[in-house]
């Protein structure tokens, strides 16, 4: 193969002779474009966020966090990012305290674990696996919430991006999506809500679910229960697409098509997030809205 390219460059005329004269297929065009695309040495994460109290609530019980870092040099480059959305529960039950604690404790724990790798001269990888770190971070947050605001609770969807892998810790009904370049919005988390469970069991249809009276009842939440079993898993970062985290104030109001369209039309990720929040508010804004959009470039 390499020999072939060498010949190609040495005798450009022969390349012309070999070229297909028939119209190129879409696949051929794509492969040529792909081979000519500029290669970036540095892989980097780009993120945008948006949040709003909504139109009908007085209190913002959502919390979000976005940390994006790139560290590149002769020793290579490794994108590192931590993104969290937490949606506190209940009106008088200190939902905002719970969601704030969840975001800060999880982020604090994860950053402490990664600081010897990110900020010391001889990078040391944490001994624990990425999934173990996320598990321990959630456990810390659970303890803190039970102490600071007993009987309160919050959802938590946290995504740790390292290289091309995303490790997700998830409790409750906030969501992580893969937004694919072909316009598909794929939910990668599973709602821990009663309504979703009934739908999974086939007791109610998707339409019934949308109007179910107990739509907001969770069966798993951070701060609740003596044993908490968060969903923790690792998936590949969506290629040429976006990772989106959001609370139900966004996904419960906007359709997948609307979400994808808004993201595609926006000139940048922060603007996309603003437009998503605006759209949710225009549709009534019944709940607090939080959204984080992340892209991996290079």
């Amino acid at each position, binding site marked *: 193969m390499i020999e072939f390219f060498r010949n190609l460059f040495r005798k450009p005329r022969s390349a012309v002779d070999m070229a297909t004269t028939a119209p190129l297929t879409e696949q051929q065009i794509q492969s040529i474009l792909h081979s000519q695309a500029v290669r970036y040495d540095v892989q980097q994460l780009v993120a945008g966020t948006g949040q709003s109290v909504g139109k009908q609530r007085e209190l913002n019980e959502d919390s979000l966090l976005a940390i994006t870092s790139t560290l590149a040099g002769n020793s*290579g480059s*490794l994108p590192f990012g931590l993104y969290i959305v937490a949606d506190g*529960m*209940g*009106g*008088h*039950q*200190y*939902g905002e305290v719970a969601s704030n604690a969840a975001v800060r404790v999880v982020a604090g724990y994860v950053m402490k674990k990664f600081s010897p790798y990110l900020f010391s001269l001889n990078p040391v*990888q944490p001994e*624990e*696996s*990425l*999934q*173990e770190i996320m598990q321990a971070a959630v456990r810390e947050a659970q303890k803190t919430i*039970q*102490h*600071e*605001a*007993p*009987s309160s*609770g919050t959802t938590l969807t946290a995504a740790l991006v*390292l*290289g*091309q*892998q995303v*490790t997700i810790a998830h409790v409750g009904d906030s969501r992580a999506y893969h937004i694919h370049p072909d316009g598909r919005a794929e939910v990668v988390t599973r709602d821990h809500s*009663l309504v979703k*469970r*009934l739908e*999974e*069991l086939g*007791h109610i249809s998707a339409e019934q679910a949308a109007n179910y*009276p*107990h739509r*907001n*009842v*969770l*069966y*798993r*939440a951070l701060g*609740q*229960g*003596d*044993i908490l*079993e968060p*969903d*923790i*898993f*690792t*998936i*590949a970062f969506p290629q040429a697409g976006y990772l989106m985290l959001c609370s139900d104030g966004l996904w419960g109001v906007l359709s997948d098509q609307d979400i994808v369209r808004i993201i595609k039309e926006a000139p940048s990720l922060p603007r996309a997030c603003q437009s998503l929040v605006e759209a949710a508010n225009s549709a009534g804004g019944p709940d607090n809205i939080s959204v984080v959009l992340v892209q991996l470039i290079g």
Partner: protein
Amino acid sequence: MGSVYRARDLHFPNVVKLVAVKEMVNTAPDPLVRQTIVQNFEREANLLATLNHPAIPRIYDYFSEDERSYLVLEYIHGKDLEAVISETNGFLAEEQVLTWAIQLCDVLAFLHNHKPDPIIFRDMKPSNVMIDYNGDVKLIDFGIAKTFQAGQKGTMIGTEGYSPPEQYRGEATPLADIYALGATLHHALTRRDPRMEPPFSFNERPIRKINPAVSLELEAVVNAALQYNPEDRFSSAEDMKEALMAAARKTGLLAKVTSHLVGPVNNVKPLWAFACEDEIRSTPLYYQNTVFVGCYDNNLYAINAGDGKFLWKYPTDGGIVSKPVAFEDTLYFGSEDRRLHAVGVRSGKVVWTYYANGPIRSSPRIAEGHLFFGSDDQYLHAVNLNNGRAAWKFETSEAIRSTPFIAHEMVYVGNEGGDFLAIDFRGELKWRFQAKRAITSSPTIFGPMVLFTSLDANLYALDHRNGWVIWRFRLGKGSISSPCAVDDLVFVGAADGYIYAVDTKTAKEVWRFRTEHQVSSSPVIYKDALYCGSVDGNLYCLEYRTGRLRWKFASEGQIIGSPLVFDDIVYVGSTDHKVYALLA
């Protein structure tokens, strides 16, 4: 957030009267919330004070001080059922669970028939059931007093996993307690904690599938209690007790007659067996209708795959534990005589040999016209396939017995010092990972992960691009078995005698299968089955999705090497000196 203390009642100075003191620490910053918590506590005290039943602890006193409230209760000598379940090896005896179930029905019937209003326990679960020294049950923790507020997110009562669907909607009836009792019995019989599973998923974990020793009758009673719709369950605790008694009579369980596990019959007969002169610890290769296998008698044998007839043997000066590879007309394999041998596939005649400085126990792999293999001389060798000359050698600090895996133009290999290395085709190190003990296991690439085990008792999943540990799964003991992955599952054996199936996305155990000795052999998947040997001498065939035993074949020695499956036939070697061909 509460603790329970064992305390002595000093009103009785001359005797030791023990009581249980339940403490509730009220850390809520909001005075209204604090007040509610105190009220709940007092409510529990008042409720208990009115109840007189042998399975309900007596209450002596209650009081509050600063942000702490205390309840003084009868001290129960014993353990809670959750501890009993987790501390029991294997499953609890069915008749034991049945006895407790009947007692729990009694106490629920007592509560549900309480006047003027029925009392709904609302939180039946193993940790709320004490088993005292007589083996009798006591129901503890009447502290559930949260009221349901419609429209607020997360207003839950009871314990997720044990609570029935309607309780999530705020309806607590006697039938909710029946469901929770069913859930408690399910947990006790299967050891599967429902809090770790999605709610209402009991029918996805049939009792007898997990614990086949349970009778059909008892399973049916528990299933009836766990019906999704309340009207499909027993209409009362008395009815459920009646059903339990009937099950007990029918199976004779109360007379302590245990049922026996019926295992699959071991009637697998080999198609053929071929005897060498010493132990076989290596894995065979199938190539061009021939089975090639190395043996401790120093020979590499070529055997007709169809009838097990001897074709040729090639002598080396050391035992052969590595698996041969073939490319075109040549067969390549390492020997403990420090040489890598290239031998004609049909002739069995030497083509070339390559000298390492130590025994070669790692199996060679072929990529890009080169052979890659490790040696006890601590080097990873890259050797030209045609002439047997070294392209490069990569030095590590310990012997390499692991077989390299080649993907993405990288060579992945472990060594006896616990190093795991990713080396590119030019022989340059891309990244390194350090396990706590030797990595003898051979890696495999699955999606973004490189998977392998170590003697430090972990199954590791590393990001193959940079060596970050995505997850690790704790095995009972160290392992030298090499994982194999299919669908979303990775399978591997360990020295604790188990074959494990682990979910590659979540690192959760899906099933484990116990053999009678160490599993050094590496599992192989063929169609819907998993094949793996054990030092206990058996070759096991399991359904790979469930870990259910299909059949096993007993050799007369240990099976240390891995099986090979080709065209519905399993080939495997044993330390009884034989190679067997079995119908898959």
